[in-house]
């Protein structure tokens, strides 16, 4: 299988369109015959990433590269950056506001969930510049 690249702009500041990128990627992976467990891992980590971009960074971009070995997601934003990445990775730690919580998010589980469902995850962040999260999920071809 040659590699396939997908690009998404997550540019909305409300939730109405959040989930479209992960939903589209999920459909494509299913059509390509990627195993359901891998599809699930990609869909969850990508959706959490999308939500994070909408909540904290006013949008961003997601690049997906699908190959026979793995699926790599690069989630890039130009938001405020994460002051303490170790803290942000702790389950339950959240800086989201009350409005976000009333919508069912902001419980401090976004990044922990992304880590849980990825095989490799790297977070690079600089205050005032932005955050890039790179996620690799191994493709178990059946």
């Amino acid at each position, binding site marked *: 299988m040659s590699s396939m690249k997908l690009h998404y702009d997550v540019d909305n500041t409300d939730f109405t369109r959040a*989930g479209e990128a992960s*939903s589209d990627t999920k459909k494509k992976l299913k059509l390509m015959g990627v195993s359901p467990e891998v599809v699930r891992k990609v869909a969850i980590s990508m*959706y959490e990433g999308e939500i994070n971009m909408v909540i904290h960074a006013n949008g961003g971009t997601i690049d997906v590269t699908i190959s026979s070995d793995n699926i790599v997601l690069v989630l890039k934003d130009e938001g405020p950056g994460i002051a303490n990445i170790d803290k942000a990775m702790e389950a339950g730690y959240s800086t989201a506001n009350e409005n976000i919580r009333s*919508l*069912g998010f902001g*419980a401090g589980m976004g990044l922990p969930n992304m880590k849980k469902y990825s095989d490799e995850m790297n977070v690079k962040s600089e205050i005032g510049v932005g955050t890039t999260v790179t996620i690799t999920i191994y493709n178990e071809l059946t």
Partner: protein
Amino acid sequence: MTVLDAIEKSGFKVLNLSDDAEEREISGVYCCDLLSVVMSKCFENAAWVTIMANVNSVAVATLTEMSCIILADGAAIDEIMITKAKQQGITVVQSDKPIFETALKINQLVNANA
């Protein structure tokens, strides 16, 4: 039991019915309102009972391949959620009972027919 069967017997109010409701089976019942938890714990073809009535619920239901969303406690739904549910083909119904009673009812129906 299929989604359509369960809904008809439950008496819950139908807000959107997906095209596959007649064939789609309910595999079990799942309750939670925290979407990150739902995403990581909910299973395929679950009937998801929640009070979280917004567009994110539909996105989560789509990603985890649930059979339907059951809004408990008469949770008010907005137009955007319904539009999204129609687009994504997700069945959404509404119950005026609290989460526990709602889930119990749907669970009894699903098990009665197992």
